[in-house]
């Protein structure tokens, strides 16, 4: 039994391409040291529970945006991104409906992204603030390009008619 050694490359980029093609390659570095490099895939399906955040994601599927409010009378802090317990005083929170309109607190346009989102680039991220609510919410901002965006821009929520129970079930667009 014998197998010819895999092809040798001096550029790491070529090694990457080769292992995707054939599963193995040899990298020779500037000192002549040779290393065997192999393709090593990994994928997994999680059984992910939203647990105490569940009502928020069920709400999105019904066109509702839910934040939370501290139940302690002396605190009453409000959160646009829900939290099961208040981060100021530690009391339990209750669900509140958020307004569907807000303003851009900050924004960016991503021209690159993680591998999972590269095909969606460029996309906009925005932190949205709501009247009378003590914290903000991170969302995708659609129907607008980089040069349209500014701090203070009025925006409103849109919901996916085919909800996937993901934070991407809601996005914002500029108020026209």
């Amino acid at each position: 039994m014998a197998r010819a050694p895999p092809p040798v490359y001096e550029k790491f980029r070529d090694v990457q391409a080769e292992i995707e093609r054939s599963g193995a390659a040899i990298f020779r570095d500037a000192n002549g040291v040779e290393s065997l490099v192999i393709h090593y895939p990994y994928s997994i399906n999680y059984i992910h529970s939203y647990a105490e955040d569940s009502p928020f994601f069920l709400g999105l599927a019904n066109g509702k945006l839910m934040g939370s409010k501290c139940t302690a009378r002396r605190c009453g802090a409000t959160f646009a991104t829900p939290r099961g317990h208040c981060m100021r005083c530690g009391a339990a929170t209750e669900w509140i409906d958020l307004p569907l309109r807000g303003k851009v607190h900050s924004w960016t346009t991503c021209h690159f992204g993680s591998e999972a989102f590269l095909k969606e680039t460029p996309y906009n991220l925005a932190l949205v603030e709501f009247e009378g609510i003590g914290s903000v919410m991170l969302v995708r901002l659609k129907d607008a390009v980089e040069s349209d965006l500014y701090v203070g821009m009025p925006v409103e929520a849109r919901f996916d008619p085919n909800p996937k129970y993901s934070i991407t079930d809601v996005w914002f667009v500029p108020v026209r």
Partner: protein
Amino acid sequence: MVTGGVTKFAKAHPAMDFRLMVKRAYDYALKGIPNLTKDRIDGTRISYFSDHFSRQLKAASMVQDYLGMNPKGSVRIEWGGATGGECFQAAYEAIASGRMDVCLAAGYETMSRVATWKGNEFIALASDTNFDFPLGGFYTGYYALMVIRHIYQYLRLTRFAHITDEREAQRRAIAEGQRIMSLVSVKNHLNAMHNPYAQYPKQLTVDDVLNSEMISYPLTREQICTMSDGAAVAILCDERRAREFTDKPVRIIGVGTGTDTMRLADRPFGTVPLLPREKASDYEGLPYPGVHSFRAGRAAGIEAYRMAGITDPKKELDFIELHDAYASSEIQTYEDLGLCRYGEGYSFVEQGDPFLKNIRYPFPTPNAGAIPVNPSGGLIACGHPVGATGLMQGVFAFWQLQGTIRKHFGDGTLQLKNPRRGAIHSHAGTGSSVTVSILERGFR
């Protein structure tokens, strides 16, 4: 601290796995001090950020094993981007508590084992996977959100307050912010020209930085650190033993740690925790930290300065190696650490305070030498193999305080004249945890 070692940070080190990288840095550290042999080391603290990168859980045990440290005690340290800084402090605590006399802190990351954008995905998993990651989880995007607000708060509302057209004012403020961030990028890349350990030493102009690829607006490629393979080690011991090992020990006189909410969206709009020379009236009406500043960095600074007895960091520190994963976060960090007040970060750069005196930058730096920041080139130019980064800062600061930069770099350009005190600053996930450690020359 009595010795340290660093591997050259590189895009990929396919000929070394993580164990061998750490071994190389460890051997380098031991070479310098013949009286310190393996049997004198009581135990280790070993840091790496992500199990995903090497697809090897309990990799710290394999480092311990490869170094021949068994059966001595060891703990793995992980704290996001601040992993290396935490490891340094964990070793400090092992000594300070009396649990060990000599402790090895070792860290590494091998990020080349996956493609760059997959690596970005692993890093983005250090954001809330219910609310943040699925939106397009991307750390550069998160820092871009923060700097847009920082620019709004500190340039739009000040330098451009006179412009009444809101969108025009913001557009001009962002352009100004981008220009000033580019000065930081030029500084760090140019400093690194004299650091043989750096991954990307470069001679850049402001235009080169501005015209490099847009990654996440307004941050361009040259304003962002990259993925790296690398390892670093530091050996700490108690003061009595330090003299046995070296006549040039460095004392750790202050440690601090701070934290903030994992989600940017949850950051409160409260008041600034003050440093000794600040007054509440300095920041009247400033919603803090919001997403424009790192409250964790401020908290870590306050704790470390208090312990070290520092009241005026800009005067009492001779240099800082800080976590410039983004040129924006270097500017934000000047303010958190009290090198200038909140809101003064941009003019601090323009005045030249964080620049080195003996390097000629392609623009005026009138106050150069006031408090050199990232003389080594920082993360932007040296690279950021996460678990090693904070320890790398520790080693560079150690050599700086020993006065041995020329010996280790083969080039004395970055050696400051007679530095007495320096700080290292390590920072994780949108500022969710930060460490600051203060080092002082321990010899005459």
